[in-house]
């Protein structure tokens, strides 16, 4: 009996160690204590803008619970503080989790998805996402890296829009100028890159700001590939996280939000 108990404890300990190490490599991540953030007093305020975080399936049993929660909820709430301070957008202090399994998402015309390099959307979800975007919704995809994750990302996206290409967004596009002029942008590293001698993960050396356009030439999806803006928001209050990355991450996302509210 003692042997069994010792085995269970040892297995659990091993699982924790392996899990933590894997998480630091950018593998599956659960909602961890370090991502936690206190619930603001005005969390129940009814506002115009709500930061909607997309919950999605990511193919593996443990991943379903995990990938969409990366940096959640601290990144969201910390970003929202900046959004509220820097703009006139009437924004709620806390995020809202939405999924593609019901029509609630249509009440939130701006949605953030993290780690979509692991999403495995069902056909129904692809259909709802397509409908959401064509009605006027906007999706910001962030924090996925390298060719493998791009392939996974595209495997679902190509079922959302078999007829629309993913293209690089030109620097002249209004999305980079709607509030701040973002002519010179750099790769925003995640916390895994600490101490930031290297800013990329896997083989995602070059950052890309890609998009999917609608028939009127408006960006429907802002795809931040090979960069980790979520970490930049989350760790903006960390003295070791370089301010220049945090600033750009805030500016870019705010530009995306204002763009989505004006185009």
């Amino acid at each position: 009996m003692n042997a069994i108990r010792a085995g269970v404890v040892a297995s659990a300990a091993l699982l924790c160690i392996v899990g933590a190490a894997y998480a630091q490599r950018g593998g599956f991540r659960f909602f961890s204590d370090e991502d936690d953030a206190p619930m603001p007093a005005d969390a129940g305020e009814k506002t115009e803008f709500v930061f909607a975080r997309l919950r999605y399936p990511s193919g593996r049993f443990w991943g379903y619970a995990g990938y969409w929660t990366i940096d959640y909820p601290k990144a969201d709430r910390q970003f929202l503080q900046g959004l509220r301070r820097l703009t006139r957008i009437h924004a709620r202090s806390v995020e809202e989790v939405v999924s593609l399994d019901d029509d609630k998402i249509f009440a939130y015309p701006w949605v953030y998805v993290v780690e979509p390099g692991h999403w495995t959307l069902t056909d129904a979800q692809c259909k709802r996402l397509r409908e959401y975007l064509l009605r006027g919704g906007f999706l910001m995809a962030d924090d996925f890296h390298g060719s493998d994750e791009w392939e996974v990302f595209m495997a679902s996206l190509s079922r959302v829009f078999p007829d629309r290409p993913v293209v690089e967004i030109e620097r002249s596009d209004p999305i980079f100028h709607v509030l701040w002029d973002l002519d010179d942008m750099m790769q925003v590293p995640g916390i895994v890159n600490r101490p930031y001698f290297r800013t990329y993960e896997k083989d995602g050396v070059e950052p890309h700001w890609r998009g999917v356009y609608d028939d009127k030439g408006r960006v429907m999806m802002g795809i931040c590939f090979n960069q980790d803006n979520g970490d930049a928001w989350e760790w903006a209050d960390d003295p070791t996280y370089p301010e220049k990355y945090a600033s750009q991450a805030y500016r870019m996302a705010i530009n995306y939000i204002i763009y989505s509210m004006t185009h």
Partner: protein
Amino acid sequence: MFEFLFKYPASVFSRGQFVLLGGWPVWLLGLGVVAAGAALAWHLRRSPKRLTGGRPAVIWLLQTLMAAVLLLLLWHPALSVATLRPQQNVVAVLIDDSGSMAMQEGDRTRLDQAREVLQSGVLDRLRERFQVRLYRFGAAAERIDDLLGVAGAQPATRIGEALQAALADTATLPLGAMIVLTDGADNTGGIDRETIQQLRQRRVPVHPVGFGREVISPDAEIVDAVIPVRTLAESRLSAQVTIRQHGLTGGKSQLTVRDAGRVVASVPVVFRQQDAPLTQTVNLTAGSAGVKTLHFTLEPLAGEVNAKNNAVARVLQVEAAKPRILYFEGEPRWEFKFIRRALGEDSSLQLTTILRTTQNKFYRQGIVNAAELEGGFPSRAEELFGYAALIIGNSEASYFTREQQTLIREFANRRGGGVLFLGGRATLGNGGYAQSEFAEMLPVRVEDRKTTFHRDEAGFELTPQGLDSLICRLVDDPAANAERWRKMPLLADYQEVGEAKPGAVPLMLLNVPGRRKSPLLTVQAYGRGRTAVFATGGSWRWQMSQDAGDQTHELFWRQLARWLVSETPGVVSASMPKTVLSDETRAPLRAEVRNKEYQPLPDARVEARIVGPEGLAETVELTPSPHEEGVYAAFWPALKPGAYVAEVIARRNEEEVGRDTVQFRREEGVAEHFRREQNRELLEKLAEQTGGRYWTPGAAKKLPEQISYSEAGITAREARDLWDMPAVFLLLAGLRATEWLLRRKWGVI
């Protein structure tokens, strides 16, 4: 009967003045009556008291009345009346020679009847007393010597112009009266005030003699078709077609609108109410830019007497111009994005937006150059008035300076633009609008409290006016339209506003459980322009909660935006009361000229370059109106039938102020098919306003004698005795008889 009792016709009494020809003073008459009354009272008191109660008083009253009448007769009552001196006055006799007079009434035409009246001795007896001038009239008046050339062939009836022509022709002559033999089927819509004034100035009574049936049955007629004169390309229009019918109750027909032979709309018509005019709404789309002549045709019903009055034409100017709308939004919000999307896809509108993204930054979209709106919301009239409509989003009143608030108010009031106020957390009641310059221009009352905005889902319903309004017309069929609105998703938020002001029209009402129904969309005319309140910032849900292909959100916003801009005038605004002149040759042109701040410009030089059929090209100068500042007018003779374009250009100090174009059509051989029944109402009114009398053909034989009583021309005052009127003797006899009958009844004879 009147004349038998009172010796003279009623007109003598209405014109004459009561006088007492006896030389004794009037006070003596009063004294006599009092004395007689006293004497009679004394006499009754002294009589044996056989009368009791109030009976002596009744007898005294009857006797005193009789004494009073007898005394009055001693004072020689008479009427002093002006009469035309024989052979010293002219009487104008005008006979209607228009097509409608050739209409058969039984075995004779109306014209035959008119000739018969004149030739049955009336004309001869008139000539015995007066110098008679004979005219025939229709589209124009012409003096004639006899009735031989009168054939009922003129294409229109203009009674007013005919009267004016006769007045002008006899300007230096003592004109005593006018006799007009007509059916009153005037094609100009009535007799203008100027003509009536001239007649009254010369005190010339007009005696119309009316011919023809007052009701023609069975017949249906398109009385009018009202459409906007101008519209933007691809706009939806609503035409109000008024149809009058007699004897066709229960009948069904089809009303069709054609543009160059192509059917653009068609609706069934059912005459449900007996002999009542029916107004049928026809919805249609304007189509591409250009001038269109829309033909409204009512399919003739079986047995209709006249099928030629079943069609009318209207000119529609579909403009290629793209009016500019300025949308100011106080903070980024979804409503802004989706309104931009809806209006941005409308090729007939230009949307310029200015959005406060941060405390110190604006984001401008749709600007034509970098300088546009560089300083934020315009502070100068010249800059703001360049737009045709304004949308004021979620912004506190205090964000605007008092001058800007006044400017926004003047934008609607003076410039004639449309202003739409949206709901939001910082606007209307929440935004201090009740204490601002905006309060007056809003079509609803707003409370001064910060809790009027609710970020909760809200239902709504259309009012009957909303269901009729083009703004809310999602589908043409009214029932399907109502159903479509019932199925619309909820709004994301709503704002409470007070009731609609008098004259404002609520088109939609909020329907939130537990709250009173308050106006959601309310519109009104304000000054030269119009204002509206849409008390929500949450109509974007209509887009996000419906299929991507659904166009209801876009359609609603485009229609609302078109309502805002469609009647916004430019600095020069040319117009005509009618764009189709049916057998009318006078084209009345009107232009309103304003400067860049839209203040009336009274010292401009305004001319119209008119291009018409067969290569016609003329320039006509418009003169300032004495009644309205900045308004210029001219009458231009459009003699040839066809399409005309008048380009009105205003200049000041050789510099062009602006220009505008108005298009119209001249049609021939149309007017006389309409309103063919006798318009007795018009003729009676003409007689009443000029001091004449309306005559039926049967009574007209008395005309020569009775028109003598006139203040016009050369007159003499004559006193006509009243003492020998049969009515006086009947009165005296009646008083005596009453006394006798009463005494007999009471047994005191």
